[in-house]
């Protein structure tokens, strides 16, 4: 694993905008960054990332029956009791799931360490599945990268296959918060792939979702048969229409059971069940009696996205805090593991799954140890 500088493709910004990648630059700062790329060996990809990703995923799935059978665990994960049966039903009836992303700390050798699972509303999908794929093809065409270079990125193929094969009711609505262009970009990409797979895919801003006698309806008041929502389950359960989830005859992507795995509480539960697994970091639930945090630990809210509300004390005792809106849920603590640094940036690997298969990686760089919304996205190649 190494980082290599490369010349940017001239005019890539115009091309990005022409394919709907409007958020390539964020508040004047680059988000898509092709001034460099990461290079891995095939062995690193297959042994250190692909295989552990699928193993960690199976470990996480194995926790679901444990959680559903144990009220204490459901309470620890802060799942409101009113939803327990409904949630269990989504698992019992094997409601299909689409995708997820594991965040891994990996420096090229030794086991990758699982930092967290983004199993409900993972983003950076378009950048990974499409834009870095095109980048590799372009750079090969220009002769700047060897023809033998490959990429760990079967994301789009696998998503199309998943949409084509999963039992999905139609039309399927795709929904995100109105006015959020990054979320809309992700939704557009998924709708594009779903359409290519033959799905009747339609957009509905989340705010326009209606309700009639406990049934969720579209803007013309037709019952919503199926919906992909890019909005956290933990919010939906606690909002005004939450109770209609229990009565609405609607198939959800991700299915309700996925909320158990997108919860940071899954990290201590994984550690309890698979203690000392090489890809896991020690983790536990914070309680009233927990001592103040020692060096070498990280504190994360159960529900948090984009690095918000994370507090970290590195091995030297240096403290780093990211503010955010997630102050109302319980916290977990996880042992600190340093992210590798390349060119003074900290590097994180997002490892994707489609269904239960590993499907590629996207790399994020940040000036700090906490990867955020604004962290840059860099492409990668595989070359031996």
């Amino acid at each position, binding site marked *: 694993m190494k980082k290599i500088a490369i010349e940017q493709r001239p005019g890539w910004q115009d091309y990005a905008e022409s394919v709907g990648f409007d958020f390539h630059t964020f508040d004047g700062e680059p988000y898509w960054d092709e001034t460099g790329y990461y290079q891995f060996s095939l062995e690193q990809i297959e042994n250190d990332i692909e295989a552990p990703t699928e193993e960690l995923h199976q470990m996480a799935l194995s926790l679901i029956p444990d959680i559903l059978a144990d009220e204490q665990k459901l309470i620890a994960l802060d799942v409101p009791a009113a939803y327990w049966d409904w949630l269990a039903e989504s698992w019992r009836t094997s409601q299909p799931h689409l995708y997820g992303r594991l965040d891994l700390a990996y420096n090229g050798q030794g086991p990758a360490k699982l930092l967290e699972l983004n199993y409900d509303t993972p983003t950076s999908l378009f950048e990974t599945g499409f834009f870095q794929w095109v980048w590799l093809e372009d750079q090969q065409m220009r002769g700047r990268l060897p023809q033998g270079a490959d990429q*760990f990125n079967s994301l789009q193929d696998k998503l199309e296959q998943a949409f084509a094969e999963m039992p999905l009711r139609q039309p399927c609505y795709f929904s995100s918060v109105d006015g959020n262009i990054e979320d809309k970009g992700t939704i557009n990409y998924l709708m*594009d792939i779903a359409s290519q797979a033959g799905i009747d895919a339609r957009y509905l801003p989340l705010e326009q979702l209606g309700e009639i006698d406990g049934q969720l309806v579209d803007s013309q008041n037709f019952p919503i048969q199926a919906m992909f929502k890019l909005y*956290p389950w933990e919010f939906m359960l606690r909002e005004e229409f939450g109770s209609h989830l229990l009565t609405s005859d609607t198939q959800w992507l991700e299915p309700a059971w996925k909320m158990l795995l997108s919860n940071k509480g899954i990290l201590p539960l994984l550690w309890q069940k698979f203690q000392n697994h090489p890809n896991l970091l020690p983790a536990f639930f914070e309680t009233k009696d927990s001592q103040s945090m020692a060096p070498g630990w990280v504190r994360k809210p159960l529900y948090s996205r*984009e690095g918000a509300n994370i507090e970290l004390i590195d091995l030297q005792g240096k403290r780093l805090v990211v503010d955010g809106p997630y102050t109302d849920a319980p916290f977990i603590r996880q042992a600190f593991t340093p992210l590798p640094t390349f060119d003074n940036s900290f590097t994180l690997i997002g490892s994707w799954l489609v269904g239960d298969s590993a499907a590629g990686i996207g790399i994020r760089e940040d000036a700090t140890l906490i990867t955020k919304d604004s962290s840059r996205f860099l492409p990668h190649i595989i070359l031996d």
Partner: protein
Amino acid sequence: MSKSIKRSKKAALILMVPTATLLLAGCGSEEPVQTAVYQNAEECAAFYNPPAECQAEFAKAQQLHAQVAPKYQSKTECETDFGIGNCETPATAAVSTDPNAPVQQQQQASSGFFMPMMMGFLAGQMLNRGGAGQAAPQKSVPTQPLYKSRDDQGTYRTASNQPVARKSGVTSVMPSQMQPKAGTVVRRGGFGAQAQQRQSMTSGG
């Protein structure tokens, strides 16, 4: 060492590229489309339509009936608008339809309101053959139940009180006026509040 390719064979876009705007065209002036109105599946078949399709369209309309019919707190209020003996509860409607009726209808049985009986249906999807030699594909209108009001028993109306036709058979409608609306007041905006509160965040992670 395995030599399998680890990236997608293709990464094509069909909607996100500029040509996709073609798919969104056509919001200009609206043109009427031909559709048909029948009392029931039998009458539909008597108009030389395939009986199986008639049955399917009728069933579709019937399923929507409980969703879209105007709702009333009392039978009297309902009969004031639709005539004596022309109102029912969702429970009777559910029983009279499919035994595997959606849960939705069964839940409504307990909510104790009244709605007009379905007096006919708009066969939205069926009429793309024959016609007056008009071969061009036309925008279809949704299949839906139709009603008749007390003071105008001759006219088929949609659930939102749009007159459709005075007799069974082929008729012309404006698609925008044929969009079923629910009989109860629909509520919106019940999701998304925390995105407002926790502004500056994206929902993804």
